[in-house]
């Protein structure tokens, strides 16, 4: 009874301040956010001045993940972002171009050509074409009159109605359209100052490709010429086409034979092909040939060819004689070990090449091989403790000149570790871990230090008293070694504590469990780990899976004990890594500990539209949804889902018993033809349906998210309109009880033991539906150590780019309908049910931040009961700490230390002042009495 009343008081205290919210003083401190673009692509990344009149430039990139964005090169912050691809499943070619001295950037992705304001990222115009885009170019046509508006755009689309279009740069209207008939595959467009070339691939009878160059009149779109380039039996795949230059004084096309021994070049518009032998430079075949050419029509017609072998790279610079179209080699850049990146910059008409090797950054002019600037690469080792050094993958550079000498070189370098680094004169200015945008699995792990202490304490608890005492003594003596360090850091810690700076030290000194290690497995087979309490520093980053190009993996990460992270791909045993530094602990698990597919574990497979559970070899049960519905998702109760109380204490101190079963799962099925969706709560051991509901008019193309925890479930969907029902998004919350009569356990009361298979007891469920303002793409629930703290439903709102934490009290299915709550219900914190539920902006965990593209949310309990750690990943990385019932076991920011000290001081002063007075009064009183 005492406990019950305590819980009532506790619950009341929680619900009085129902709106668990983001506090202004915590907002930018306890949460962290990486606003990512995704892996930048070499062809679609460049420096550009958003305002032609100012010199300040931004870095623009359209990433592999289909996100277009502008990055401030000063601090690496995102100026604006536009996710062009809402789902990154389809791999489309993407293009990003910027006209010289124009304030728009033009993107091409899928079937959409769009122009964006370079300064603020707003849409200028967009156009949908009838075929996947093969290329987008800006027409750098010299039309005599200086045009102030945007430059026109040339778009080449493939598919059935392949065509070249000229699009008005100001409005997005099509000026002309030239169809490319026939079986040839459109490849690229290229524009010189006067001509326009469309290159198509012509497949010969023998399976080789031939390059077909179609010259077009830029003004009318009429074909002026067409010819084949003699690339006899050289092009077997398009991979060996090195490059098709564009927007240069004389655009070229380059290709190699399949053995990469001869480089062939053609200046577009001519029919001659120049051949250059590729020097082998010692051992190792040339793996890759790339070309770097300026993209300015008035720049010098110089270009650089970059050769790459397995162990080294080198480059050659070529000049084109514009008058006769002859190509000749000017000079070559020496071989350097490892991989390297070259980038091209243009100032006025001069072309400069910047080379990043593993050790230095070198800038040369295209005209001569003299080195203009050289900086050694400092501190670009991203993760020092990982034994592999990051290799440069690609780079873009901006060279500044002062007094005819290179004064500064800024290079945005993408490395093999997935970091995008800005090198300012060779030293890194900022690093963006863009690889985290490809996270496909993540987990929390407690650091090893905390685990070591737990182990020692366990050792003491399990040995005899004398041994335990000596062990403890030894431990404390060992701890004494740390004393000088602690003493020396003490003043700083006190000062920090007073001025409200976080006094949270390294991973080792963490009494609250905030310093957990988050490990993210990325699409490219790497695992990146960082500390949840100091996320600005990546702890380690290493390649764990050796994936071939095009190969994918389905990793799952978990932490079996503190300090260890197990990475397992599908159908693999799993490999253990140290959570702190990423060291491999054991390549394979010891046989004795190996997890054999046990005969006691149930396995669930979706078979012929239904769900089948097998126990060992035998089929345990089979669930077939009604009316030809198919399974959409199955969400089980979390494995680690502690429940503090088996009952819900009512206002009058009676108890409603929760229906708690560890084997509950929420199954969602749907049928597209009838637009129905059914939701079943299943017992996963017996296969029994515990609760089911069906909704009609459900949009199955919209996300249907679901969640199951403790004895309640939640799901959301988008409903269609009918005249008498509302259209929009709905959130349904249901709670299961053993009986709806307080203090009664129903059928279960008579039983001492409970079995999923034999129990006939079915729960009573209460369900409420809420109309919510937008769709929810993913749901999760907060987790705390004991489960005492009230829970919050975490919902990802893709339309608002937000993650909200909805307090359970708001969703409670026991909210009274059509009447005001009674006094007892008010005690519990229940308020009258309203069908419309608005997401209070104070529930937005991300507050003013915009968290884009979240795919999943992980939660983990901290060491203190009040707090749950939240980590969301997808495109962006976002994490925070949540106290759904407020921080009742930790002094938060609301605890004002100054105020406390001031109060104590004021009391002390008052005591000293009043003491003589009191003394005098007492003495006086004595005299009076006598």
């Amino acid at each position: 009874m005492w406990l019950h009343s305590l819980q009532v008081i506790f619950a009341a205290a929680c619900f009085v301040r129902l709106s668990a919210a983001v506090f202004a003083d915590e907002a930018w401190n306890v949460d962290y956010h990486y606003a990512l673009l995704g892996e930048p692509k070499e062809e679609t990344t460049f420096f550009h001045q958003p305002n032609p009149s100012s010199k300040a430039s931004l870095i623009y990139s359209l990433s592999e993940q289909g996100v277009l964005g502008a990055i401030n090169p000063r601090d690496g912050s995102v100026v604006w972002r536009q996710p062009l691809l809402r789902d990154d499943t389809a791999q489309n070619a993407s293009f990003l171009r910027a006209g010289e001295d124009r304030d728009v950037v033009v993107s091409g992705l899928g079937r959409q050509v769009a122009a964006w304001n370079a300064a603020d990222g707003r849409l200028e115009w967009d156009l949908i074409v009838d075929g996947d885009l093969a290329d987008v170019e800006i027409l750098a046509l010299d039309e005599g009159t200086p045009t102030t508006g945007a430059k026109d755009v040339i778009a080449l689309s493939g598919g059935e109605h392949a065509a070249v279009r000229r699009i008005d740069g100001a409005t997005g209207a099509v000026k002309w359209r030239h169809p490319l008939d026939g079986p040839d595959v459109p490849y690229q467009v290229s524009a010189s100052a006067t001509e326009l070339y469309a290159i198509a691939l012509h497949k010969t009878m023998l399976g080789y490709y031939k390059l077909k160059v179609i010259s077009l009149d830029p003004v009318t779109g009429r074909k002026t010429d067409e010819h084949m380039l003699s690339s006899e039996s050289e092009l077997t795949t398009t991979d060996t086409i090195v490059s098709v230059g564009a927007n240069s004084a004389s655009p070229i096309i380059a290709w190699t034979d399949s053995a990469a021994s001869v480089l062939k070049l053609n200046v577009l518009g001519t029919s001659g092909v120049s051949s250059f032998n590729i020097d082998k430079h010692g051992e190792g075949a040339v793996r890759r040939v790339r070309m770097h050419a300026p993209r300015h029509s008035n720049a010098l017609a110089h270009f650089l060819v970059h050769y790459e072998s397995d162990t080294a790279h080198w480059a050659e610079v070529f000049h084109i004689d514009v008058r006769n179209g002859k190509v000749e080699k000017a000079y070559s850049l020496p071989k350097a070990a490892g991989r390297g990146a070259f980038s091209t910059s243009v100032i006025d008409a001069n072309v400069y090449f910047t080379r990043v090797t593993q050790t230095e950054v070198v800038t040369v002019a295209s005209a001569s091989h003299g080195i203009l600037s050289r900086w050694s690469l400092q501190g670009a080792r991203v993760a020092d403790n990982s034994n592999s050094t990051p290799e440069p993958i690609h780079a873009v550079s901006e060279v500044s000149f002062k007094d005819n000498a290179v004064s500064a070189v800024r290079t945005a370098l993408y490395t093999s570790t997935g970091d995008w680094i800005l090198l300012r004169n060779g030293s890194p200015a900022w690093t963006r871990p863009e690889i985290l945008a490809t996270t496909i699995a993540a987990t929390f792990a407690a650091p090893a230090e905390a685990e070591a202490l737990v182990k020692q304490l366990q050792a003491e608890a399990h040995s005899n008293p004398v041994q335990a005492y000596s062990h403890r003594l030894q431990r404390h003596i060992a701890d004494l070694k740390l004393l000088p360090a602690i003493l020396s850091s003490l003043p700083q810690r006190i000062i920090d504590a007073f001025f409200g700076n976080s006094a949270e030290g390294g991973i080792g000194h963490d009494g609250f469990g905030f310093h957990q290690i988050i490990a993210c497995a990325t699409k490219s087979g790497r695992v990146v780990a960082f500390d949840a309490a100091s996320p600005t520093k990546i702890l380690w980053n290493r390649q764990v899976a050796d994936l071939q190009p095009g190969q994918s993996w389905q990793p799952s990460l978990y932490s079996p004990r503190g300090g260890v992270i197990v990475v397992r791909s599908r159908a693999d045993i799993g490999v253990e890594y140290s959570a702190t530094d990423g060291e491999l602990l054991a390549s394979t698990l010891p046989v004795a500990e190996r997890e054999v597919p046990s005969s006691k574990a149930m396995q669930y497979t979706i078979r012929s539209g239904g769900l089948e559970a097998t126990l060992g070899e035998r089929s345990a049960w089979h669930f077939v949804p009604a009316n030809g519905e198919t399974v959409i998702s199955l969400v089980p109760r979390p494995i680690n889902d502690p429940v503090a109380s088996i009952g819900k204490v009512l206002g009058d101190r009676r108890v409603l018993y929760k229906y708690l079963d560890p084997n509950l799962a929420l199954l969602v099925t749907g049928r597209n033809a009838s637009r129905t969706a059914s939701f079943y709560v299943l017992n996963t051991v017996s296969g029994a349906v515990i609760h089911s509901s069906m909704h009609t008019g459900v949009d199955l193309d919209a996300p249907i998210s679901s969640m199951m925890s403790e004895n309640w479930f939640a799901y959301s969907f988008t409903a269609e309109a009918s005249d008498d029902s509302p259209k929009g998004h709905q959130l349904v919350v249901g709670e299961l009880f053993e009986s709806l009569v307080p203090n009664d356990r129903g059928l279960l009361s008579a039983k001492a033991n409970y079995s999923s298979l034999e129990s006939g007891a079915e729960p009573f469920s209460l369900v409420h539906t809420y109309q919510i303002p937008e769709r929810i793409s993913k749901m999760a629930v907060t987790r705390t150590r004991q489960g005492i703290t009230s829970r919050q439903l975490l919902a990802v709102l893709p339309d608002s780019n937000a993650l909200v934490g909805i307090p359970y009290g708001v969703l409670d299915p026991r909210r009274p309908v059509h009447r005001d709550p009674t006094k007892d219900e008010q005690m519990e914190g229940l308020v009258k049910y309203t069908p419309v539920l608005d997401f209070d902006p104070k529930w937005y965990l991300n507050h003013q931040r915009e968290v884009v593209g979240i795919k999943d949310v992980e939660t983990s309990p901290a060491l203190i009961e009040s707090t749950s750690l939240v980590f969301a990943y997808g495109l962006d990385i976002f994490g925070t700490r949540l106290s759904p019932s407020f921080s009742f076991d930790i002094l938060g920011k609301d605890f004002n230390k100054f105020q406390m000290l001031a109060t104590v001081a004021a009391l002390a002063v008052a005591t000293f002042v009043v003491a003589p007075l009191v003394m005098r009064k007492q003495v006086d009183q004595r005299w009076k009495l006598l």
Partner: protein
Amino acid sequence: MHSQWRILFLLLASIANAARLTVSIPASPPLLANPATLPSSTHAVLIGPAGVHYDVPIRKDSTFAFGDLAEASYLLTIYSRDYFFPSLRVDVGAAADGSQHQTIQAWQTFRGNEWNNKGPAYGQGRDELKVQVQPTSKKDFYQSRGGFDILGFLKNPMILMGLVSVVFIFGLPKLMDMLDPEMKAEIEEMQRGKRAAPAELQSERDRATSEAVNAVQNFDIASWLAGRSSGGGGSK
């Protein structure tokens, strides 16, 4: 060449047929004085029947343009980082006169109400409709803590009373000292007279009252708590 013209014709026909909706955000002081300050992530979503979902980003002139809308009933929602916007119902239907044209209408709609329950009309057009939508409120993300406020603290009547009594305790003797000796003597005389007077003047009742007042003033809380009555020591 022939095929080209046919495609062009088809394109033109589809453009002529397609209903277009342009939603603009006007300057609406004081809430949103300049719609150009809206971040580029602001976007508008039209949800039609199952599977129909248009999502367009904000344009430079703070508008959202939907082209090529099929005949259906749509829910329009504008999402912005900092503001809430009302949601609209947009109906696209065939024109009543049976021509190739389409009518497009927009009303405000209220979440949680049946779809027929329409709010004020935002406009109606033939093939094309331009509506203006103003934000309803600004998002307020941050909960402020009930911090310490020295002024509020001082306004507390208890504190005020305490301060006044402090002023009396410390200030009054000082004030007495500052008076000139004659005046002081006079006041002392007056007070002495007052103290001496009651013995003769007071009636029985008055004396009883003053005893009660004395009893209250000399109340000994310690002895009372110890269970002794102030009257003379007999415990119960």
